């Protein structure tokens, strides 16, 4: 019950922010020259002025900007995200179709980054300033500094073109219809390279944070106490240090869940995945305002949800936080 009321309070507090973001994006896109009909003409390679006028009326673009914004917000209040002009279907449907690949990719690469960031961070902190630390830190820096599209393309060249171990792109194999476990395995195979590409950059950040956090906690008094009690090193690390060092990592997950949604445009394009990032990019180029606002809305909701879960995790890791909340 307390969780529910907390969730309710959180959501209520985010509603004004949400509206401000949506209005901001709406107005920003008004600054871009051209509307969705211009974009359609660009795509078609021509069209006469009369047709353009008909289409503007069809999409409700003949109204003034405040009227369009008012219309949009009025629909939104009734939980109607509107109609997508490029897809010709309700925005909610379009986004729902694109959500599974995005969430799958996001969860997979975040988990990958979190897990290996944690492991490597601990190893690095245990051997601080010795060769394991130097090696891990150098690798982390390389991963962090490399542009993800290059990583992705090189991964395709190595693993798909030369070694032919993994598919070079797409979400699943189109040639054969698969069901059940085979389909799951097929999708997993398609997601290996994108997950690694997206995850490696985040891995670098996680391992740096984990290393720093471990080093800090290792110097605290209670660790000395634990050692003085005669606990062996493994116990000290896993039971005492790790749990306390995890807090900054959890904070980071909350922050990065949002970044990952937007940041995957590049990875989705390189691996031809039908995700939200590409959809957002396409909606900007095609000036499909409804779809773009819908994505912003859904992303914002996702970020709020993730942050809520993160807050709950805090409480679990450090009971003092819950007592104050």
């Amino acid at each position, binding site marked *: 019950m307390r969780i529910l009321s907390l969730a309710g309070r959180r959501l209520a507090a985010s509603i004004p922010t949400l509206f401000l973001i949506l209005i901001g994006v709406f107005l920003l896109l008004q600054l871009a020259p051209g*509307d969705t009909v*211009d974009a359609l003409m*660009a795509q078609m390679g021509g069209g*006469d002025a009369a047709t*353009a006028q008909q289409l503007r009326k069809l999409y409700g673009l003949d109204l003034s900007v405040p009227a369009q914004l008012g219309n949009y917000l009025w629909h939104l209040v009734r939980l109607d995200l509107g109609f997508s002009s490029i897809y*010709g279907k309700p925005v909610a449907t379009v986004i729902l179709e694109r959500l599974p690949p995005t969430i799958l990719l996001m969860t997979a690469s975040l988990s990958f980054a979190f897990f290996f960031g944690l492991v490597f961070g601990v190893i690095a902190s245990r051997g601080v300033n010795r060769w394991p630390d130097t090696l891990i830190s150098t690798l982390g820096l390389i991963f962090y500094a490399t542009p993800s599209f290059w990583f*992705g393309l090189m991964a395709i060249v190595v693993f798909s073109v030369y070694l032919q171990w993994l598919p070079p792109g797409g979400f699943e194999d189109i040639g054969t219809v698969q069901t059940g476990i085979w389909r799951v395995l097929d999708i997993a195979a398609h997601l290996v390279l994108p997950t690694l590409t997206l995850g490696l950059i985040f891995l670098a950040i996680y391992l740096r944070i984990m290393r720093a956090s471990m080093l800090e906690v290792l110097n605290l008094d209670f660790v000395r106490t634990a050692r003085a009690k005669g606990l062996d090193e493994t116990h000290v690390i896993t039971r005492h240090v790790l749990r306390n060092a995890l807090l900054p990592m959890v904070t980071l997950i909350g922050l990065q869940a949002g970044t990952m949604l937007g940041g995957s445009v590049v990875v989705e394009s390189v691996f031809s995945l039908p995700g939200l990032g590409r959809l957002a990019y396409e909606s900007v180029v095609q000036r499909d305002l409804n779809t773009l606002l819908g994505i912003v809305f859904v992303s914002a909701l996702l970020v709020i949800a993730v942050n809520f879960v993160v807050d709950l995790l805090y409480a679990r890791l450090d009971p003092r936080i819950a007592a104050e909340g």
Partner: protein
Amino acid sequence: MDLSRLEINRRTALLTSAAIAANVLNPMRAFAQETPRKGGVFNVHYGAEQRQLNPSIQASTGVYIIGGKIQENLVDLDAQGQPVGVLAESWEATPDGKTVTFKLRKGITWHDGKPFTSEDVAFTAMNMWKKILNYGSTLQLFLTAVDTPDPQTAIFRYERPMPLNLLLRALPDLGYVSAKHLYESGDIRQNPTNLAPVGTGPFKFVKYERGQYIIADRNPDYWRPNAPYLDRIVWKVITDRAAAAAQMEAGELHYSPFSGLTISDMARLGKDKRFIVSTKGNEGNARTNTIEFNFRRKELADIRVRRAIAHAINVPFFIENFLGDFAKLGTGPIPSTSTDFYPGPNTPQYPYDKAKAVALLDEAGFKASGGNRFALKLLPAPWGEDISLWSTFIQQSLGEVGIQVDIVRNDGGGFLKQVYDDHAFDLATGWHQYRNDPAVSTTVWYRSGQPKGAPWTNQWGWEDKTVDATIDNAATEVDPVKRKALYADFVKEVNTELPVWMPIEQIFVTVITAKARNHSNTPRWGSASWHDLWLSA
């Protein structure tokens, strides 16, 4: 001039030339001894998803590449670029040019089993080509009715003479037929059939996963005997050009149409025996690079300045170093690939002559003060990397004669809005698409009276009564010989006045697997039905 960039591009271009040269003979290789093999899946690179797939309401290569296999046109072009019947078996026009009668093929059915009749043609012509289809609405402006005395006859009635050779060259692109029974109720644009097309073509639509792929399967009831050979076509949506090249190499794609890969990747794959890289099969999709002048700027309204700008740019140098064999020197709005209308190179031309450019600018009274005469805003279209390179080349060339150029980049919608609606440009550069007859999409670049906001039309603030008269006369001239002569006059006139300069000709580049047979065998092959395409083992 930025030399490092030039070097790289020069190298790329040279490699490209070598690659193309090596492949010129490849598509011609005789496979006479091979018997066509049935079966196989053909995977096609689909770079930019469209909002719908019906070619009866949208004339663009992005629609033909899919819709053109599912739906069919009345006529298409044969290997020599001459009209050949598809759904129409024969045609004739009355001497006054106001009536054109098409005899339709018998025994053709739609993919849903309903018979194809002249009713479908009449419905499509009056409701789609005339009202919705881009360029179709202009072509069919004076179409008043389509009579259907029997299911195999469609009689097109025009208010003004319609030259038969214009109609037959326009119909391959602007003559796709849709089924009346699927479109007669409701708004045609919103019809769900547009995303699940039903046609008479060799392939039947199966599935469209937005953002991923489109599948079409062999139509077992296709009217051409023994066709098609392929079992299935899969179009894979891949927006990243470099990733598409990698998929070609991994064997996941067989064909990347319409210059879908980067210039350097096309050059690289051209040296690979597994692929054929060629401009063959795209002759019907010629385009020219443009320089569009805004006459609202007093400097550009002066013809000496426009000519000086044309003289100041070393086009052959640009082509040789940046585009290689993918392009050639252009001579105006009608490209040399247009055998029916090309007037030859003996129209007013503006070869590179820096001294002359400087003299013309001085004569026009725009003296250089501190190295600069005046500044211009150049808007490049975002359609291809050649335009981007070309705009930088214009900037640097004009800088050398004292004209400062500021480049303002936009995406597609923004470019069209700023150039053709807001007129917020001094110079613009993009592509002019030539569609087999100048009346389809070329003369609108020059004819005055274009409504504001219509893209790729005369929005320059320029009007010339003589040119207008030539364009109007040619559009209704029924005699092909006189028509060709009128278009030669047209090119002379516009090359003299120079409201738009079109100094580069390009044809799209095809990258296709060497296993493909019967490919690139018509001038608009990427858009064609692929009924005879097959894959060798």
